[in-house]
């Protein structure tokens, strides 16, 4: 494991810790669906998005699975785009951050929360960049339950027509949705990557918690087409009792659970090579 990868995994442990910390202020915060996407969100911000000379991000990110936005908030906090106080005031009337992304907040480029919207918006943004001669890549994170929205497939159909080689989309395939396993809801829907390829995308299937593989796949794409990463992930990844348990889609851990989660994260951190 490279030093870069070790540093990324340590950041992700820190993000999980921070999300759990914030969870103690509120009854619910969609922690598990954030945990499944964390390595990818970190990879997007820390390894894939380019920066201008003054350090501002040149590329764009849309959290289409808006309920996972706490993953984006903690990364934006680590970059100084959101402040510590913003997270302290999460979901309070005095603050500005809610459980879904709200356009206009620092680092938030589109309002999502209703599933099936982010990819279409990302397509429009990427096309406008192309039209205006701007060198910008738009990244978009979707959920696997979200792939059931018809609007996602309208966007998947449209993106190659528009030649959106500046669009990179992810599916956080944690195999969960509100009422159970996505594979049980629509058993004939899979695989997804091949379907995107049939629609004219370049696509790859990989382990979404393998930070280095995510970075390598996106950087190594052939290009010329929109790119889809179908990322196999574990909902609640990193805390044993949260993994693959539907209840953690939404609720916050109690004090005892919180302590156990922190212990597990400390152990995991100790196992990361220097």
């Amino acid at each position, binding site marked *: 494991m490279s030093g870069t990868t070790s540093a990324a995994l340590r950041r992700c442990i820190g993000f999980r810790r921070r999300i759990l910390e914030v969870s103690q202020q509120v009854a619910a915060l969609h922690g598990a669906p954030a945990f499944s996407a964390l390595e990818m969100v970190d990879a997007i911000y820390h390894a894939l998005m380019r920066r201008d000379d003054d350090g501002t991000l040149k590329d764009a990110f849309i959290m289409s699975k808006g309920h996972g936005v706490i993953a984006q908030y903690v990364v934006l906090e680590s970059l100084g785009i959101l402040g510590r106080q913003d997270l302290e005031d999460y979901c309070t009337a005095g603050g500005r951050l809610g459980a879904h992304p709200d356009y206009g907040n620092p680092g938030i480029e589109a309002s999502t929360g209703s599933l099936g919207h982010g990819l*279409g918006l990302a397509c429009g943004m990427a096309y406008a960049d192309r039209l205006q001669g701007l060198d910008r890549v738009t990244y978009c994170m979707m959920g696997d339950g979200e792939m059931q929205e018809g609007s996602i497939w309208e966007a998947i159909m449209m993106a190659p027509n528009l030649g959106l080689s500046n669009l990179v989309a992810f599916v956080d395939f944690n195999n969960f949705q509100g009422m159970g396993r996505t594979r049980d809801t629509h058993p004939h829907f899979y695989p997804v990557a091949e379907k995107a390829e049939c629609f004219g995308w370049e696509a790859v299937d990989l382990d979404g918690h393998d930070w280095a593989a995510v970075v390598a796949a996106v950087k190594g794409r052939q290009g010329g087409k929109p790119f889809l990463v179908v990322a196999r992930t574990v909902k609640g990844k990193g805390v044993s009792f949260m993994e693959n348990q539907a209840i953690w889609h939404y609720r916050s851990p109690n004090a005892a659970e919180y302590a156990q989660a922190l212990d597990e994260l400390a152990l995991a951190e100790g196992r990361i090579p220097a």
Partner: protein
Amino acid sequence: MRNTFAETFHDAGQNDERLVLVVADISPAGSIAKFREAFPQRFINTGVAEQIMIGLAGGMALRGLRPFAYTIATFSLFRPYEFIRDDLCYQNLPVTVVGIGGGVTYSTLGSTHHAQEDIGLACGLPNMAVIAPCDPAETRAATLWCASQTGGPVYLRLAKAGEPNLTEGAEPWEFGKVRSLRRGSDICLITYGAVLKLVLELAAALEAQGRSVSVVTVPTVKPLDSDGIVRALHGHAQVAVIEEAAPNGALGMQVKALAWDSKASCRLDSFALDDAFHHVYGSHAELLERHGLAVPAILARLGS
């Protein structure tokens, strides 16, 4: 109105690279074909897919463009309604959603193609402006305004093709303002949209009865020119609102609310499409008549 929209968009688009037309397998002919030829990158057809039509428009507006999304009103407003609400209205983006065939314009196509409820639904959306021109001249003024504004989303409700110009010589079109087409003293008819033709026939019939008639158009249904409406309510003993839209949330209800709030003492009637699906096919006038919008029926209710 459709052809005037196309000509106007073509004219405006030649001078403004931010204007993009996104259609969903329905496009005005004529000038838009020229626009498509001249600026192929600024004309996008999503095919029979209305959600991505709105999503694309929203994303482009987030990047500084001023897209117009265009198809038949039922498909431009009803089908992707939640996309209009979240992508355009919630983010307050300058996108014009053009609905062709508002009301029961497509009189032979059945209720799948009748945008009866469009005015109430569009007015119910926060941040949404609602403009419903009554003739080609208002269509041109409204389209130019939509092309140049950066405030937020607009629902531009048009009829179809072939409407006569009825507002020539009237005071200039202004966003958010009513227009007086005719000043009388007994009764004021308030309207918008292509049904103005019928309203002018009604005005002629009332004048034949010896009554002095005012006609006011309300090209901007939202934000409503409350002052202009209140002036009409307080300047006449009788007022009637006539609109080609289902009643819930449309202009008639809003004018009645203003009458109550401003303690108007006039007699006030409202005439709208029925809150119903009528399984009737025929001319536009026949459809309107079935909904109760015909000169004799309205005259009978207005009294003399």
